[in-house]
């Protein structure tokens, strides 16, 4: 283990990340292998002498590999630059071939070798990881205790405080209780401490009051919501599929979210948590159809982890090639999430070629992919919304069905009542035409024809055969009319021989046609694309100049409504929008009524079961005129109808028409409101779980894809441990799951391999997890690149601390709550965040942790804390997301009127293209793959939102009302209360005075406004919520 101080205290380097710059070497001391030499050789040499390409058998990217040397022997002879091959090549300007090293870079190399090449292991390593520090098994480090014994609270101090002391620094004093409880409350629950919690802690005189306070927050259900969210981000959780513009919904993803929250609250051992997510289905062996236990249900929910990535395959259109790419994309993002969230590795480079900077070959990638391929078999694909299993507790489904039936009954009854009223109140009129297509009735040709009335040409070619089996045909059979198309392209029609005047003369007069739709398909045939019928058909082939009529109506069995076309067919036909909304399906009556209204216009109402169906259309009377009624026959459109009836009104009564219209819509609105209310009583069908499982127990063949292209499959691959983490101590066995699950067992094998406590994969996984936890508690990871602990990742600032924590994590049985206690109970965490000029000069970025770093609340905590402070937070847990939508200004907001608008941000719809604007402003990511580290930005739009958004204003009003409610009339008491709620502490006298002063000024400004006092308090509350003291944790 390294003994020199961390590199960050070396002369500060002015660096720009866009450019690859090496330190200006004014280092008096001996260069350090890890921090000085390796970075140089990695930068200049590793493209050709690295894990991807090792020319001359030489790989210079880790100490062990450097020690291995190359084909020509050792690269470095400690103390002898001139005998070191590395130096010889560099000195001769042979290497690097394109851009020789600069003088100071050479000097660094030479100085290091001359000094005996400190840090270079005596032995190299044959392991494929090059024994990169993060890829080796865990070894609990031994370290002496820090000198300042009175500041030592636990083993963390052996690493943090001792390191500070080596640099002539120490901890800041312990923070006061008010600061500590606010810090712990936000860190563990993402919410401010309540006045009661503050009082309980302030009044606790026991020696372990702090530890007890930490424990209270750890056992709060709010804890799982906070820490579950960190995991959900790492696991790439979202409530939408992403990928395409549609960004379609994932209505069942919430069950995985709830599973994660439960797991954190229960402190589920992390190894078990990982196995469940990777292979819960293989552990469960669930057989669809049987009632089961909540444990099994949890296991199935856990597997959603595998399908969190973007998946556009439900929307893929286009050609096969594109569809295949979309499928592989879903599979690859699964792999990316697994590797990032568990192992802190970026693997995607290896999809196309061996990783240049990591010991990760293309073969590794596809061997790993073959673990997940059976679930994502691109040749036997399931779309996201098809990957659903139903698993319920005994009786659960029955209870739900009974409840549904009850609601259905109520809805049906209301509908029937409305239908009965509507039918009763429809105008009667006189029958002009009726055909019941009765068995044994007259031949069709008596009343119908394949020509339009007055036309001598058949309406369409080939013409319809009436009462014939030869298609296109119409047949009266079984008391119904069968409309049978032939597959020939083109339109044709069967029309009544009789002509009707479709333009009633008197205002308020009407004519209508209705028919029963018996079935939208014939026998086993396809559902008819459209149910087409014609009014005023007279010149079907459109041969006469200037003729109109020929009004085509196309009812839609899918989607509903009726397309309206005037003067159809022919090139001059006009698409005139849609009528109605009802879906065309068997067992209902359809048609249209034409009512003459004012100004020479006619209104077309679509009739559904005899009742006007919402959207109507208004036409010029000239568009209609006289003609027959007919059914259209076209491609893919065969259906069965009955009872064609044409009626017209006896007289015209515009007033009665208007009254009926008004009454109908009033009753319809009433009906809809009642139904909406009843629908609100419905519960989602229980047991539906969006899960992941193998498509079959037989593993499909998996190929390495040359250059990552599915059209260039290479050799076949089988699952194998990642070479860089290969370890004889790690169990690796693929077997049929003991549970009897119909799966390949590959994921379970991989899950057991990665969690096998004493081996390399688990060591890496433990380091990655504790590093992330440290980041959340201390503001930065011990390895700053939380997303990358690979060879190309950053070096740890406190390597031994990381080892200690990782080992402790495993030793504790992978208890996350235990690790919170280790971190939070340390004196390192409990110190104040106050400034110290001396320490600040030595370590301005606080990488050594001489104080606790002041931090802004993250996006979710900002919103949740505002709601909590205003007394408006809805703490209900779990269940389907609270919907969000875009308002008129394009802002993504919680949908107005949705249930649960004030629930925690975790429960708001996490749609990838619709991150809630307030959260997005405060750096909540729109999830692409996953997120383990967020930027913190400070932008004017945040200020605008804090100053002007309706949300802030509304919550400030609630906050003000809460103060009045809880502190009474006395302004001084209200101010005290406001500080306690917003900042977790009492105001100082000066602060108190400033608050009073502001309130007075505002009251004066509002003058005579009777709400002046209320506005002043609202303003005051809003400024507290907008202030740094609220938005930051100290």
């Amino acid at each position, binding site marked *: 283990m390294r003994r020199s101080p961390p590199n960050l205290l070396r002369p500060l380097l002015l*660096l*720009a*990340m866009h*450019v*690859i*710059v090496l330190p200006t070497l004014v280092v008096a001391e001996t260069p350090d292998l*890890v*921090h*000085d030499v*390796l970075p*140089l050789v*990695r*930068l200049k040499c590793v493209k050709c002498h690295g894990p991807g390409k090792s020319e001359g058998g030489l790989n210079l990217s880790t100490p062990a590999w450097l020690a291995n040397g190359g084909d020509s022997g050792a690269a470095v002879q400690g103390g002898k630059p001139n005998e070191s091959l590395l130096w010889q090549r560099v000195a001769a300007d042979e290497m690097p071939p394109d851009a020789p090293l*600069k003088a100071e870079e050479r000097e660094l190399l030479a100085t290091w070798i001359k000094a005996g090449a400190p840090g270079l292991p005596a032995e190299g390593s044959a392991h494929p990881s090059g024994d990169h520090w993060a890829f080796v098994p865990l070894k609990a480090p031994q370290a002496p205790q820090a000198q300042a014994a009175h500041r030592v609270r636990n083993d963390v101090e052996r690493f943090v405080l001792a390191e500070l002391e080596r640099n002539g620094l120490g901890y800041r004093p312990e923070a006061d209780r008010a600061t500590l409880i606010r810090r712990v409350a936000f860190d563990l629950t993402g919410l401010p401490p309540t006045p009661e919690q503050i009082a309980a802690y302030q009044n606790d005189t026991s020696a372990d009051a702090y530890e007890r306070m930490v424990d209270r927050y750890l056992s709060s259900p709010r804890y799982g919501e906070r820490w579950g969210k960190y995991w959900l981000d790492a696991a790439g959780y979202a409530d939408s599929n992403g990928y*395409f*513009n549609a960004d379609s919904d994932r209505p069942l993803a919430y069950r995985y979210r709830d599973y994660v929250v439960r797991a954190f609250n229960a402190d589920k051992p992390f190894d078990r948590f990982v196995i469940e997510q990777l292979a819960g289905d293989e552990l469960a062996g669930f057989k669809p159809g049987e009632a089961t236990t909540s444990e099994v249900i949890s296991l199935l929910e856990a597997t959603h982890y595998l399908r969190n990535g973007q998946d556009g395959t439900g929307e893929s*259109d*286009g*050609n096969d090639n*594109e569809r295949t790419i979309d499928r592989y994309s879903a599979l690859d993002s699964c792999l990316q999430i697994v590797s990032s969230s568990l192992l802190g590795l*970026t693997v995607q480079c290896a999809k196309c070629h061996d990783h240049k900077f990591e010991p990760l070959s293309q073969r590794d990638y596809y061997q790993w992919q073959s673990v997940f391929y059976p679930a994502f078999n691109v040749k036997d694909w399931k779309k996201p919304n098809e990957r659903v299993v139903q698993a319920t507790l005994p009786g659960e489904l029955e209870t739900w069905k009974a409840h549904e039936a009850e609601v259905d009954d109520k809805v049906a009854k209301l509908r029937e009542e409305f239908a009965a009223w509507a039918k009763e109140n429809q105008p009667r009129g006189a029958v002009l035409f009726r055909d019941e297509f009765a068995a044994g009735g007259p031949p069709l040709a008596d009343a119908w024809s394949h020509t339009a009335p007055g036309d001598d040409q058949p309406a369409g070619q080939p013409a319809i055969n009436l009462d014939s089996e030869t298609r296109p045909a119409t047949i009266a059979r079984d008391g119904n009319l069968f409309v049978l198309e032939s597959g020939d392209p083109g339109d044709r029609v069967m029309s009544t021989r009789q002509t009707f005047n479709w333009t009633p003369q008197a205002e308020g007069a009407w004519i209508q046609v209705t028919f029963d739709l018996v079935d939208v398909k014939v026998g086993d045939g396809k559902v008819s694309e459209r149910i087409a019928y014609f009014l005023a058909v007279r010149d079907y082939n459109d041969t006469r100049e200037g003729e109109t009529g020929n009004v085509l109506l196309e009812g839609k069995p899918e989607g509903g409504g009726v397309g309206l076309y005037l003067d159809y067919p022919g090139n001059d036909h006009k698409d005139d929008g849609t009528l109605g909304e009802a879906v065309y399906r068997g067992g209902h009556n359809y048609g249209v009524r034409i009512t003459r209204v004012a100004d020479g216009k006619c209104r077309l109402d679509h009739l559904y079961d005899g009742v006007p169906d919402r959207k109507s259309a208004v036409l010029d009377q000239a568009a209609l005129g006289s003609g027959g009624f007919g059914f259209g026959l076209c491609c893919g459109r065969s259906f069965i109808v009955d009872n064609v009836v044409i009626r017209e009104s006896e007289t015209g009564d515009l007033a009665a028409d208007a009254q009926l219209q008004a009454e109908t819509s009033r009753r319809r609105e009433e009906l809809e409101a009642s139904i909406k209310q009843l629908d609100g009583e419905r519960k989602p069908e229980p047991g539906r779980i969006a899960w992941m499982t193998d498509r079959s127990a037989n593993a499909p063949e998996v190929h390495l894809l040359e250059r990552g292209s599915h059209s260039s499959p290479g050799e076949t691959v089988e699952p194998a441990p990642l070479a860089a983490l290969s370890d004889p101590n790690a169990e690796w066995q693929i077997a049929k799951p003991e549970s009897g699950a119909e799966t390949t067992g590959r994921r379970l094998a991989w899950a057991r391999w990665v969690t096998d406590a004493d081996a390399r994969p688990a060591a890496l996984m433990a380091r990655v997890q504790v590093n992330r936890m440290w980041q959340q508690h201390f503001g930065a990871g011990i390895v700053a*690149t939380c997303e*990358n602990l*690979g060879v*190309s*990742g*950053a*070096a740890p600032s406190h390597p031994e601390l990381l080892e200690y924590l990782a080992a402790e994590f495993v030793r504790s049985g992978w208890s996350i709550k235990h690790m919170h206690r280790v971190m939070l109970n340390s004196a390192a965490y409990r110190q104040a*965040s*106050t*400034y110290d000029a001396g320490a600040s000069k030595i370590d*301005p970025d606080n990488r050594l942790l001489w104080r606790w770093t002041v931090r*802004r609340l993250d996006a979710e905590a900002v919103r949740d804390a505002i709601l909590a402070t205003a007394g408006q937070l809805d703490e209900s847990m779990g269940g389907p997301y609270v919907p969000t939508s875009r308002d008129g200004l394009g*802002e993504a907001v919680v949908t107005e009127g949705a249930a649960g608008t004030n629930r925690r941000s975790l429960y708001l719809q996490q749609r990838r*293209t619709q991150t809630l604007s307030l959260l*997005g402003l405060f750096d909540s990511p*729109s*999830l*692409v*793959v996953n997120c383990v580290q967020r930027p913190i*930005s*400070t*932008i*004017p*739009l945040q*200020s*605008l*939102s804090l*100053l*002007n958004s309706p949300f802030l204003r509304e919550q400030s009003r609630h906050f003000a009302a809460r103060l009045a409610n809880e502190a009474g009339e006395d302004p001084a008491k209200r101010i005290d209360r406001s500080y306690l709620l917003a900042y977790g502490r009492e105001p100082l006298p000066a602060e108190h005075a*400033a608050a009073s002063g*502001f309130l007075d000024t505002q009251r004066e*400004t*509002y003058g005579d406004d009777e709400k002046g006092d209320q506005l002043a308090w609202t*303003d005051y509350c809003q400024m507290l919520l907008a*202030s*740094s*003291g609220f*938005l*930051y944790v100290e």
Partner: protein
Amino acid sequence: MSHELNRQITTELTRRSFLGRYAGSLGGLALAHLLANQQSASAATTDLQPGATHFTPKAKNVICLFQHGGPSQMDLFDPKPMLEKFHGKPYPSGELEIHFTNQAGNVLGSPFKFAPAGQCGMQLSEVLPYTARIADDITLIRSMNTESVDHEAALRLIHSGKIFAGLPTWGSWVTYALGSENQNLPAYVVLGDPGGLPIDGTRNWSAGWLPAIFQGTPFGSGKSPVVNLQPPEGSSPAARRNQLAFLEQLNRAHLSRHPGNSELAARLANFETAARMQTSVPEVLDISGEPAETKELYGLNEDATREYGTRCLIARRLIERGVRFVQLFLSSQPWDTHSKNAESLKGLCAKTDRPSAALVEDLKRRGLLDDTIVMWTGEFGRLPISQGSDGRDHNRRGFSTWLAGGGFKRGYVHGATDDFGYEAVEKVVTVHDLHATLLAALGLDHHRLAYPHDGRPTSLTDAEVTGAKVVPELLA
């Protein structure tokens, strides 16, 4: 990639995000200092020696007129007599990559006539009469290609360099590199279509993993063109002043406990900036003071051009005030002419042709065109055959883009497609090459403009993988 690089990146990340906050916060104060810093950050040579050079920029600003859907090159910019010759006949020239395979038809000739325009004689379609007037000011690239025939994927490629969602868009890269010269307006402004979002929505101007300050800010129309710009109804200016004063008092007290904390200082200053935006944004959007002649130029007196013309005019006003990057969008994807290709193109050109050309003319006569790149492009092109009877399907292998100003050649046609306008075959320009060239015109080396993400430096062009290269012939 190395520890060192990562460590540098980490250090720099802190420094750069500080700059980002700084840039967004401190008014015009210390602007020169800021710009100096940013130039050294983005355009420095590899050794950061004092006086290190970077290239001299030809352009400072960008206006991108983005045409969602894939404008049909053979009907607008790229005349192909062979299409007329083979109209209605099966495509004679080999396999085509078709998106909607089951609707593929025969060769579809263009109904539009082409004629030489300007001194340069560039052939342009009759539906672009105004663009024809600026022919001598533009570079027309007829040899663009892209990587996907999927709208979303191609949009992401042209906006962010990869077909995947969630990367920083090029407007974000440019503002990240160059900042802004007006601290009272966002550096990257999006002028959206009042008709609604384009396909792929807000991702078209996302900052991806760059700090949020580099994200495009949409300006709408109406009373609150920027969300939450104005104080709530009924609040008086005096009450607002008092609020800000009290808030400043609170924040100063807080800051005094954390001396030197730049993030807290920036937050304090941001409230002032926010207050200034309440006047600066309405001012830039108010075109009532523009001369009648200018309004006429942009077609504000015609129904067809008024809306688009207004946005083009606002784009000029934003650039004049130092905004770095302005992008116009259309609602949905109107150029996606799967059916009724010719008819739709007529309507779209009637809307966009005159204002687009007016913008170039107006910038030119005001001396702004030299510093400003105007780019007109869609995400891909269309096929030489019909889809159904009268539409055209997507085509990634060939499309046309024009650029004006900012150091691009004038009156110049670059590259060519094959005889049927299907595939770019001469002097092919990939989307990555276009990005590299645009950055070069702005004085930025696309290899070096990078930001750390996911453990490695990321860039717009990712040249090592994409092979992006600057196309010097495009630049004067």
